[in-house]
């Protein structure tokens, strides 16, 4: 068993790729089943700290399922079973002793569709802070401003903090939920195709933001957009049919993938994107 996994690993990832790097997230032999079908099959993935790692692959290949293992949001889906090991910042995420709220505070998540709460802009950003027990009005205001600045939204909403978050544009909403995630100062950010609903300009702004976040956060980004992965990610993982097929530095994956399947997917998609 372990011999086979090692063999798979060697084929998937150059052995010295992450040598000496601290890991933010790690999956070992991770399998995930929904009631009817298997979504992930013995995935081994390592996500380095303070880098952006892109997760690419065709629709339904299990990217989102994999992402949701790291903050255990899969627990919310009825009939979902996980086996194998998931380590978040060195700790076993699926251990009995893991406190989910604590885990999720350290692993923020941004969803495909912006999902601001039907509250004011400020209340949205302060949501996680209030959960953490922060009550001081002054400190809340400071942290809200800092998070909005970090998400590149402050200048646009500084006069609209008490307006409903749902009045913001889609691009602003997406940056708002990023600010909401950043406000609690997580160490890891999971992003599930966060730019898929955005117009080109908003997408550009979003990508600049991701590159900036890399200074302080470990980012795992699911994307369908090859150019986006190429632009923002340090590392890229290619997932197909529930298996991790290739993991490498982004420039290598996009210029010289080792597997035919990876190349087909990337080039096929790129042609599609251009057309």
């Amino acid at each position, binding site marked *: 068993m372990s011999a086979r996994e090692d063999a798979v690993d060697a084929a998937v990832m150059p052995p010295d790729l992450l040598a000496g790097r601290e890991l933010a997230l790690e999956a070992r032999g991770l399998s995930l089943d929904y009631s009817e079908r298997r979504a992930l099959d013995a995935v081994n993935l390592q996500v380095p700290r303070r880098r952006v790692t892109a997760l690419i692959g065709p629709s339904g290949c299990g990217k989102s399922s994999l992402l949701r293992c790291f903050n255990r949001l899969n627990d919310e889906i009825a009939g979902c079973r996980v086996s194998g090991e998931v380590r978040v910042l060195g700790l076993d995420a699926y251990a009995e002793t893991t406190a989910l709220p*604590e885990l*999720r505070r350290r692993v923020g*998540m941004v969803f495909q*569709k912006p*999902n601001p*709460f*039907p509250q004011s802009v400020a209340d949205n950003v302060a*949501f996680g802070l209030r959960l953490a027990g922060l009550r001081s009005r002054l400190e809340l205001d400071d942290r809200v401003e800092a998070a909005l600045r970090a998400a590149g939204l402050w200048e646009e909403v500084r006069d609209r903090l008490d307006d409903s978050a749902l009045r913001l544009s889609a691009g602003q909403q997406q940056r708002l939920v990023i600010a909401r995630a950043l406000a609690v100062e997580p160490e890891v950010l999971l992003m599930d195709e966060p730019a898929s609903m955005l117009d080109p300009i908003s997408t550009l702004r979003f990508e600049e933001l991701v590159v900036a976040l890399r200074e302080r956060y470990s980012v795992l980004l699911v994307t369908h957009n090859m150019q986006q992965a190429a632009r923002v990610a340090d590392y890229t993982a290619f997932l197909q049919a529930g298996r991790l097929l290739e993991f490498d530095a982004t420039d290598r994956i996009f210029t010289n993938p080792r597997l035919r399947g990876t190349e087909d997917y990337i080039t096929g998609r790129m042609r599609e994107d251009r057309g």
Partner: protein
Amino acid sequence: MAGLCLLALAAVLAVLVQQAVRAFAPVPVAELRWRSDAGEQQMLAAVVFEDAHELVVRGSEWQRRGAEYRRIARADLLQLDWPADARSLRLHDGREIHRRGLALPQAPDGSRPAAADVAEDVASNRLSRGETAGLMLRRAWDFVAGTAQGGGVFPALVGTVVLVLLMSVLVMPLGVLLALWLHEYAGSGRSARVLRAAMANLAGVPAVIYGLFGLVLFVNGVGGGVDALMHSATPRWGGGGLLWSALTLALLTLPVVVIATEEGLARVPAALRHGALALGATRAEMLWRVVLPVARPALLTAFILAVARAAGEVAPLMLVGAVRYAPALPLDGEFPYLHLSRQFMHLGQSVYDLALAGGDAPRDMAQAHAAALLLLVVVVGLNAAAIVVRNRLRERARELAV
């Protein structure tokens, strides 16, 4: 469909109004002479009904409220006059006495009503339209705002509103908690399935059975137990009362609240739930801070349905606290203001009593309709208030969704 419902409501209202108006309309007074088996008779009486074949008349109520009604065939009539000086007195206890001229009339036993007892004195046969309208308004107001002794239903009105509000206060938290547990925690487990089946069946149990249940559990069980504990000589909690009635109604409306709330919870988008959880919210925090606020309109819908169901129920209340005559209001200026163990009057009970007591007294029957109309107005009023609040919330939600 909606049109049909409105039509039905309008029809019910039309019938009630038409009947209720008779309770307040002035009745002309006639001088009658007619043949009967006992020979020729003569009286001054109010003509409450008249057609081509017969008259129904009501004489003066000298001794007590409730006079004899007589049915007189036109063929037997010897004389029918409408004297211009005929007057009707209404006393504070609701009695009506007819006479001619301004002097206070004398009863057959020689007594006279005191001037202070007279509530109303009208020239029945010479009322202008304006006077008639004013009289009817005043009588309607006396009916709505008057004490039980004077034939008013104010105590019943207060009892109904207090009861329904207390019921809501009891059923909403319980129902919402149950719905939360069912929808958010229980999943599809066995206990949840059992509870759901129980709810569906409870919704179909006849109301009077809830009354029996409340009598056994609350009045005799809990109330009796409390009395025994406090060694009270006279039953205080061990008799029917406001609290037991409200609890019984709360049980009755629980399924409605649970089902409506659950539907509302199901409509809260999973994206919002996941968003809250992903920020480190516990399940309870997610429900309290995100799900319940979003589901507020559904909670108000549950409240509306519960009020509509509860306000119309009479049968169970007769067993657990509603009475024909209660000496004191359940809500007054005396500490502790809301008297939970008191018996109370209820508009539904008033309708029932008036309709049955006045089996062939048209005036009581008309008052039963008036009480029914008032009950309907209370129900519609409470619902309308809740609907206004809900729509405002929805509007805000829609604004937020822009």
